[in-house]
């Protein structure tokens, strides 16, 4: 482990770092790195989202709440300034499996110092292509199950990253949507088998277990292409009273507007795993707060720490977001138990 200019324990609080110190840190960073100024580090990012997506747009990078923006701000706090001593290379697969291989190869040809992957699909593709370039995955539901890591505490190899929702979260989603829609009889589970862990089975087991416990039926609604989304949701607009669960699925994130639009259109109460869906008008979402910590690991890796020595981090906070306007539109009354639990209630 090499000497580090910026201590890792620093919280990402910009207030503590004034501009002066930032400038000093960047300059001092080179020296501390023992790197020549012309040694430009390459941080590559591979995502399924289109590059013009709100979540990946460069104009958003100043916002630490976005995944990429958080990374850039975090790296800057640790002495890495884009364009000065590292270059960020973004590649997107656009959710298309055929584009994936090309994008991975393009990135590897750049000989990046570290590759950030967006979700399980991209992680698997990159890991299949290289065993040496460090890989940090932003979300992975089941890295051990997917064979990405040996264990969460000691991943080994050239990969580490962050887990997302655990498998039991399926039951939690079901319970929450059932509280919002007390008279629900069936619950549709929306996912793309190609981009969902274990083809959806990762969550379905807890969903089906909970459904059985509370007497509703859980109906998988797999979609493979965006055009199927509308039809998949429409099927739950008809009685008996139905609600839907959107699983953790990069495909759904990419097509979140279509999903939310279809849910509104067919008046199907839907719970989502990420707040991204709320931003485009979703009813409610429950999932781990994605505390942006990838900058920490990228920094450590750029300074020479082996990715395999860094433990895979799990989420520790979960947040419930509810849009009451959407709920009223759907004729739903949000009970106390949900309101008490909600971290944010949008009107």
């Amino acid at each position, binding site marked *: 482990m090499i000497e580090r200019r910026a201590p890792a324990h620093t*919280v990402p609080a910009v207030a503590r770092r004034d501009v002066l110190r930032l400038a000093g840190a960047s300059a001092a960073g080179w020296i501390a790195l023992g790197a020549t100024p012309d040694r430009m580090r390459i941080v590559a990012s591979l995502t399924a989202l289109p590059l013009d997506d709100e979540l990946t747009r460069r104009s958003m990078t100043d916002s630490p709440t976005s995944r990429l923006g958080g990374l850039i701000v975090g790296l800057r706090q640790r002495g890495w300034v884009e364009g000065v001593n590292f270059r960020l290379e973004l590649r997107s697969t656009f959710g298309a499996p055929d584009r994936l291989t090309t994008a991975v190869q393009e990135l590897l040809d750049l000989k990046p110092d570290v590759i950030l992957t967006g979700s399980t699909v991209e992680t698997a593709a990159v890991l299949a292509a290289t065993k040496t370039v460090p890989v940090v995955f932003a979300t992975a539901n089941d890295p051990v199950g997917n064979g990405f890591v040996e*264990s*969460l505490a000691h991943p080994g190899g050239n990969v580490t990253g962050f887990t997302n929702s655990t498998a039991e979260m399926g039951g939690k989603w079901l319970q929450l949507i059932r509280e919002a829609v007390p008279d629900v009889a069936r619950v549709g589970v929306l996912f793309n088998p190609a981009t969902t862990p274990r083809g959806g089975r990762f969550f379905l087991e807890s969903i089906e277990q909970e459904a059985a416990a509370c007497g509703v039926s859980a109906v998988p609604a797999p979609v493979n292409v965006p055009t199927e989304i509308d039809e998949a949701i429409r099927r739950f607009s008809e009685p008996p009273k139905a609600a839907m669960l959107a699983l953790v699925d990069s495909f759904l994130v990419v097509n979140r507007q279509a999903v939310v639009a279809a849910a509104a259109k067919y008046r199907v109460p839907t719970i989502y795993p990420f707040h991204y869906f709320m931003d485009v008008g979703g009813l409610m979402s429950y999932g781990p707060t994605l505390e942006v910590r990838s900058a920490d690991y990228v920094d450590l890796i750029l300074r020479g720490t082996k990715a395999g020595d860094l433990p895979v981090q799990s989420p520790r906070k*979960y947040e419930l977001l509810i849009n009451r306007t959407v709920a009223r539109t759907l004729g739903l009354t949000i009970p106390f138990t949900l309101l008490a639990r909600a971290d944010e209630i949008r009107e």
Partner: protein
Amino acid sequence: MNEPADQEPLRTPPGRLFRKYLYAIVALVFAALAISTGFDVWFSYREQKQLLAATQREQAASAAIQIGQFIGQIENQIRWLARLPPELSSNEDERLNAIRLLRLSPAIAEIARLDAQGREQVRVSRRVADKVGSNADLSTSPAFRGANDSRAYYGPVYFFGDTEPFMTLATRGTGRAPDVIVAEVNLRFIWDLVAGIRVGNTGKAYVVNRMGVLIAHPDLWRALQRSDLSGHADVRAALDGVGPPSGGLVKEDLSGQRVLSTYATVPSLGWLVFVELPLTEAYAPIYASIGRSTFLLVILLVGAVLVSLVLSRRMTVPIQVLTQGAKRIGSGDLGQRLAIKTGDELEALGDQFNRMAAHLRESYATLERKVVERTSELEKARDQALAEHDAAERARSAAVAANETKSRFLAVVSHELRTPLNGVMGVLQLLDDGSLSEAQRRHLATAAASGETLIALVDAVLEYARLEASTEMLETRDFRLDQLIEAAADLMRPQALDKGLTFGLAGDATVNTAAHGDPVRLNRILLNLIGNAIKFTPNGGSGVNAAAERRDDHVLLRITVRDTGIGIAPDLHERIFEDFVQADDSIARRFGGTGLGLAIARRLTRLMHGELAVESTPGAGSTFTLEVPLGLAGNGIAQGALAPPSRQLRVLLVDDDPVNCEVGEAILKRLGHRATVARNGTSAVELARDQAFDVILMDLHMPDMDGVEAASRIAKLGLPKMPRIIAVTADVSRSARERLAGAGIAKVVSKPILINALREAIEDDPAQETTATQLAAGALIDRHFLEDQRELLGAAQIDKLHHLLDETGEKLIEDITKAAATGDHARLARSAHQLGSAASALGLVRLFERCREIELAAAAMPLLECPSAARELAALRVASMSALDNLLRPSGQRSLD
């Protein structure tokens, strides 16, 4: 004293004192500062370290308290939940309460409510679906039992999902059948707390549980790795209950950085909170302090050096000024004033120097003034003395001139008297050719006697004049004493008998001997004394006693002349020897005479180093006693008064007066010599050149050229045999004698010419006489000059010159002799000149003049004459030196001859 050579070693190198002061002050200040700073830094270092350790311990304790509070807060919250009365709420309400608590406390991941029997009533979770009324029996769970056993249960840390540190917390409610609330706490939330603990700038705090496993670390991933730190020595020691070292522990942290570490225990949990501060930061204030101290030390040192420079300058500059001032004063610059304004003892010292210099200056001024005064006094005295000397000199000159005038007058008068007398006497002598009648012969005798008397009178005057002028010279030769005395007695006896007086001569046997002296003068004294005895004795008689006492180197002749005459009054016993004095005027009338007789006798006696004394009683007669030392006679004294000449000489008689010429020629013929007459100087020179003469009788007063010049010309003729020149003159003054000596004329025959005197002069062969005897002391040395020199130079200097002359003279004579032998004329001239110069310095006039003559004549001097000239000079030098010896000898020791 003021020579630079003496001052050079005294010169102090400038700045030595300055450097000494400078180094001393700098060293002192440096030592003081260094010691002070050293102690300061040492104590500061120790205090800082202890302070640091104390601060860190406090931070650790504070962190431990915060963590304890964090857990305690959660405990309080679940205790609140546990103490809600069960009857107040349904299960659904209990779920709501639990949800509220989850919102309140994010660290709680799950809450379960168990009834008193351990059956699960409600379970609310963030990850899984809530459960209500599951009644699962959890009575055997450690949490339930722990909560029942004590007020609160703190479970061990466990890791959920392999990475997440969790802990079970349980509390029991109140009442008869209290519920138990079990909460699963996600300890990752301590991370926020731990990351928030500020330990310096770069320090950190981390937490390990009772097993030594890392549960919270600012580097989150380290905690997630489930790192077991129990293998670390400090953790192990802490787990074993060993207290943290008071000064903190220095160790390497997980990233290999050297840190100062300490810890505190979280109360009730038993966790350890380690606080670590990198040494670079921990000791930074200490290093900074040391740096500041060092910087300060350097600044102070520089200051000290500057201050030392100033101080040293202020101390040394006045001292240097003092030194230079002292040096200047030492070198005599007393006008120097030292300007030291230090306001301390140095200024006082400088003032003292100034005062001393002022005193010295005054003293010098006084001294100089006195010297000037004395000098002017001396100058005045000298001027006066010189003036007096000049006056005396003038007086002396006047006296000398007067004396010379007198001498000249006497000489002229005697010459003028004697010239005619000479003629008269000569004619009288010639008249007796044996054919005269008795009457004629008697007349002739009377005339001759009268002439003789007249001549005697003139002679007396002349002689007195000579004596007066100290020009009388003894003309010594060997003679028989008995003959002299008998002749005088025979001469005077007739007079005594004529007066009817008795006349007795009692010659002791001792006088039957020969002696060396001036018989003529001695005879004159005797005749005078006997004449007086006869003259002043009316009746009775007179008698002459003579005795000669042989001494070592001379014969003391004592002659007593007694009479029974009128006698002399005692008060006149000495006066009668004075000039022109007779016992009284009546005597002069009665007896006649010049009154010069005794004066001349006394002077002649003195001239011969003898004594003439009188014993007399008026009316009873007088006794005159003459004592004269005479030299011992050589052998072969001719017996008989008129011995024929040893050989016939060719004599040139030079005189302008025809009478004198005739008389002189006649006398010469009578004496058996062949005479040639020259009537003037020119013809005399011509005759001398043309004919060979043995002797030239030269009258000095001639119209065309005087005798001296004629003699000089003859000397310059370079004749093969230089004739002896005898001057015939009535002028017997000293200057005349000197002129004669200069012209090589040593013999003088006074006019009128007496046969005996002429015979002696002619037959006095110089070859048989030593030069020394020929020359009198008076003529060898200019006494006046010598006296003047002695007065001028002092006796010591004269002595020195005397010795010098002795030495150089000897050497020069050698040179002259050699030069003469080799015929080196130039050298002869040079050496003669040198000898003459040397001789002149002490008034050896004869030597000087002879030297000059030889010098002048050297170039033309025939080779044969050179050795004789050299011999002459040598003899002259010896004689001069011995005469000089006599003169310079203290008067009491002066030799008699």
